[in-house]
């Protein structure tokens, strides 16, 4: 699966959410979006569920960042 990276650290709310949704609009079914974020985007998750996106979140304690991977559910 091809990967696309998006770093939203240091952006003012709600810009991270807008940027992520903007990227998802053009994300292909063979692509995965990896988002680097300082906070856990709790507001994003229900939107992803509603739009049938799959996601996985990992926390890097050393870098104090969240890595959220998003991809399209296989039909």
């Amino acid at each position: 699966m091809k990967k696309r990276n998006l770093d939203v650290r240091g952006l003012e709310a709600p810009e991270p959410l807008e940027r992520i949704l903007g990227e998802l609009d053009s994300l292909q079914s063979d692509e995965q979006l990896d988002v680097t974020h300082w906070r856990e985007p709790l507001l994003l998750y229900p939107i992803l569920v509603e739009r049938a996106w799959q996601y996985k979140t990992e926390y890097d304690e050393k870098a104090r960042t969240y890595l959220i991977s998003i991809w399209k559910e296989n039909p």
Partner: protein
Amino acid sequence: MNLGALSLENAPGFWTPVRFFLTVPAFGVIAAVIIFLDSGQLLQSRWLPASLAVTHAFTLGYIAMAMFGALFQMLPVVMGASFPQAERAAVIAYLLITAGTLCLVFAFLTQVPVLFTAAIILLVPVLTLFGIGVVVAIFRTGQAKTTARAAQLAALGLIVTVLIGGYLASGYAFATVPLERLLTNYHAAWGVIGWMLILIIGVSEQVIPMFLTTPPYPDLFNKRLVYLLALLLCVGSLLPLQGLEQASVPLASILMLAYAVVTLYLLGKRRRKRFDITNWFWRVGMLCLILGAGINLYGYSGGALSGADVSIISGLFLLTGFATSLINGMLYKIVPFLVWLNLRLPVIMGKLEPGTRFYTPNIHEVINARSMKIQFMFHATGLLLLFASVFLKGFLIYIAATVMVVSNLLLLANISHAIRLYRKYSGQVIAIQ
């Protein structure tokens, strides 16, 4: 973490937090009007009826009102916790807290026992239940992050503050209950540190980088501060050792200074240098925290301030200076965010019919930048005049109170403008013919 429990359908609606926020400046006006009518006598002693009325107009009507609104919004969105029956609970809590605070303020002013009884009945159960609700809602998510832990500790702090306050109020309400004024220091310490400061420190770890594009706070800084403050409060209150109780005061003041200095440093390191009024409100707030904590330390070391009561000046800096500045600044972030979110949500969720046109506001234009700047000038000038009035008695207090009334009316107008924008466009989806 129980993230499955979070859904936007369960997130509170626009009005749930906003009705609390809209009431904040109204109590600011009430406090300023009392200061005006009292001609500044209240600055001479913390025990005067007007001093206690103004203190509770600020602590319950302004500060706690904003914090309740923010918690109803933040519990699901920031902490992933759902408050049971959030919409209904928020309406009932709002009505009881508003009516109860009005009763308490007028009870202090008039010293009528039945008003104290009404305030106890209206406030103690709802505030205690709210505190328990916050603790349980967060506990059920299993979250251990700073903001969640701080909100739980703050909710416990609120419960202790309310129970001591309820007992103190019953001393005014019933002739059979003694008025234990010694307990007032514990009531104030639990309210200011245990509830207000711990919640602010915990929440700021999330909201300062989120809304003001600062780097994050140093690792574990906020968490340690919150735990240390809670520990000091418990040790100072529960262990009946005079030395420990007294040592808690300077130690807590040093922790406050550390928090203020680190926050000011982070505000100076914002990634986006664009003018932001919330940044200035927070800077003023942190400066007041430094002055309030500094005066506490000065008073502890035996210092006196030309006839002025050190506890009054410290209270002015911590409540009217620090807390109201932070809240005022945050309202200018949270209210536009709520307007944006609630107008944008149907689009984000893909709930619109294909071909429908919709309006999305620019979050930076929901409240006019110039109007916020003017209100900030009134806010800062009002604080400066109020602090000066403690030393320069006389006509200055009338000007200070008038400027504070104008500042709060402008804040009300600015929030109302955002709400009008929301009402104009909510549900108004224009179909393209």
